């Protein structure tokens, strides 16, 4: 075990011990998760459910999962495996691709099943009846179908139920003598900035519409998330939003859910420079990790790519001066021409240098790390 300090007092990954890390790697910091979870929850003024999909590293969940007292959102049997026996917090199972095995296993874990469709609901009811157990059920409502929400066309997606099916689901549950415990919607990743008030208003209208139904025993209303990683720097009027929620829902227990807003800042992606070359005057640093390990860094899905500048830890001391620096493109270790991770302006890079990309704590598994049979990134957790 490497017990050399690699974080300074500000928990920056800067100490010489960082060179002991096996690269490419991720370093996740539970202290940052705890900080950001608490801050976001306080800012929202509601419960905060954490999406396991954003960071399914068991060692990180081991260190901070107990803080997620409002619950965790799970989308697969594999994610359920991570948490069973290890996270005594509410579980919400949400996926459009629910299987009977996932439903039965989730029931065994006393999870809340969020039905995405009438057919899913039928499966849940059938399994509940066969097992003769009480099941906590919620309904996922398609955000664009919330009454009066008037969301932009881009908000249309394939998740959840429309209003007709939502009402039919309530009837169906009533026929079985059961109840709906909650309503859930999710407008999509990074949509919170533009849609949060509309979603809240639409959900409030839906709650008003269904609350008189005898099957509606609403213990929570989940407004979803889509909260960006840099939520602190957005133009959202948080006090105004909290007041908006209070006026719409009164004392109704509300939830938001978050993934990148909780995890992004906790993670660093670290690569080592394998070599530096020049092509027609352009300087390029080739690294031992890239888009196969941190797909989102390559920004292949972005129309406008922002310039990402990693921090540099010089392998050779003393540090080379900025005067000798030349702008350098940082590329990964695949044969994909889109495997460009960032640019370095003020350092002259050399073999062995470490490049540290901040803000990589969420969705790191959203990477094609089977590509080229490259080795998987090492995962480290900060103490």
């Amino acid at each position, binding site marked *: 075990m490497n017990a050399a300090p690699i*974080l300074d007092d500000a928990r920056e990954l800067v100490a010489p011990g960082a060179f002991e890390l096996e690269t490419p790697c991720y370093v996740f910091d539970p202290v940052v998760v705890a900080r950001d979870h608490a801050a976001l929850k306080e800012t929202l003024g509601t419960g905060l459910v954490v999406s396991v999909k954003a960071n399914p590293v068991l060692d990180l969940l081991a260190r901070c999962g107990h803080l997620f007292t409002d619950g965790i959102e799970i989308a697969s049997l594999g994610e359920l*495996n991570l948490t069973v026996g290890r996270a*005594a917090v509410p579980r919400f199972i949400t996926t459009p691709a629910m299987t009977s095995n996932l439903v039965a296993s989730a029931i065994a874990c006393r999870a809340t099943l969020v039905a995405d469709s009438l057919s899913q609901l039928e499966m849940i009811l059938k399994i509940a009846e066969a097992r003769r157990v009480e099941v906590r059920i919620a309904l996922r409502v398609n955000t664009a179908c919330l009454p009066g929400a008037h969301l932009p066309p881009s908000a249309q997606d394939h998740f959840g139920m429309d209003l007709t099916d939502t009402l039919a689901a309530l009837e169906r549950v009533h026929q079985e003598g059961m109840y709906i415990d909650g309503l859930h919607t999710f407008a999509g990743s990074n949509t919170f900035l533009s849609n949060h008030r509309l979603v809240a208003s639409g959900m409030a209208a839906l709650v008003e519409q269904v609350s008189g139904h005898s099957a509606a025993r609403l213990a929570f209303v989940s407004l979803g998330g889509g909260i960006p990683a840099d939520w602190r720097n957005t133009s959202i009027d948080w006090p105004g939003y909290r007041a908006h929620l209070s006026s719409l829902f009164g004392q109704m227990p509300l939830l938001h859910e978050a993934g990148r807003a909780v995890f992004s800042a906790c993670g660093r992606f670290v690569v080592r420079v394998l070599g530096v070359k020049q092509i027609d005057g352009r300087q390029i640093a080739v690294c031992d990790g890239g888009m196969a390990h941190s797909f989102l860094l390559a920004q292949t899905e972005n129309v406008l790519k922002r310039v990402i500048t990693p921090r540099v830890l010089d392998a050779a001391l003393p540090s080379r001066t900025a005067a000798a620096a030349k702008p350098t493109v940082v590329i990964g270790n695949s044969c994909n021409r889109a495997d460009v991770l960032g640019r370095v302006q003020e350092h002259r890079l050399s073999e062995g240098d470490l490049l540290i990309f901040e803000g990589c704590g969420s969705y790191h598994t959203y990477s094609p790390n089977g590509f080229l049979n490259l080795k998987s990134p090492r995962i480290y957790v900060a103490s």
Partner: protein
Amino acid sequence: MSILASTPLHETNTFAESDWQAPGFCGLQISGVLSGSPFSGTCHPAELGVMPLVRPLEYAEVMRFERQAPVPVLLSPSQRYLLLKTLVVEMRQYVPSISVFGLRLFGPDFNVQLPRELLASDVFITHAPQDLLPALLDSGTRNVVLVHHGLRADPIERGENELVIWALMLSPESREGIESFLSNSVVLRALARRRVRPILREELARLSEIAQIAIQSVEVCGSVG
């Protein structure tokens, strides 16, 4: 090894001259709890394994282990071994007359190699080190160290991040080493709410109970970092 001090050692209860001279004195109990990571500023490789569950019945069985824990997980399995290894090494260094260690270990650290110091011929690994004591007493063994802990390295484990060290059947010549250990131990520095208490021979049969009282008498504590 880089274990950070949680509280200065002078907060450890002093062990008075009179304690060593008390009738029936046969050793001491040192206890404390982790209130933060003793390896702050370092990183450890992810080590925990996921159980290969596939059937609902299996999930139901594992759910039996799930409970609200009073303290957070602060260590990785390797770090737990490192802490215990350091304890054994320190005690050997300061008290060379120690003849036997009884050390509590438990799974699920299956992916992690045990340090060789914990596999030495005079280190007995067991779930309940106190249970070794009758046989050790019967054989007349002196200078025995038993280590109980509830250091959590996985949320599925019980424990309150407590560490209890019993140094028992101490011979007079071990006193100086024990006092050096109390003054200098890196492991003890990592513990909060340290307590040192004499153990009388008549108390040997209820070590667990005495330890429980020591642990419960401290406020359960812990943060993520």
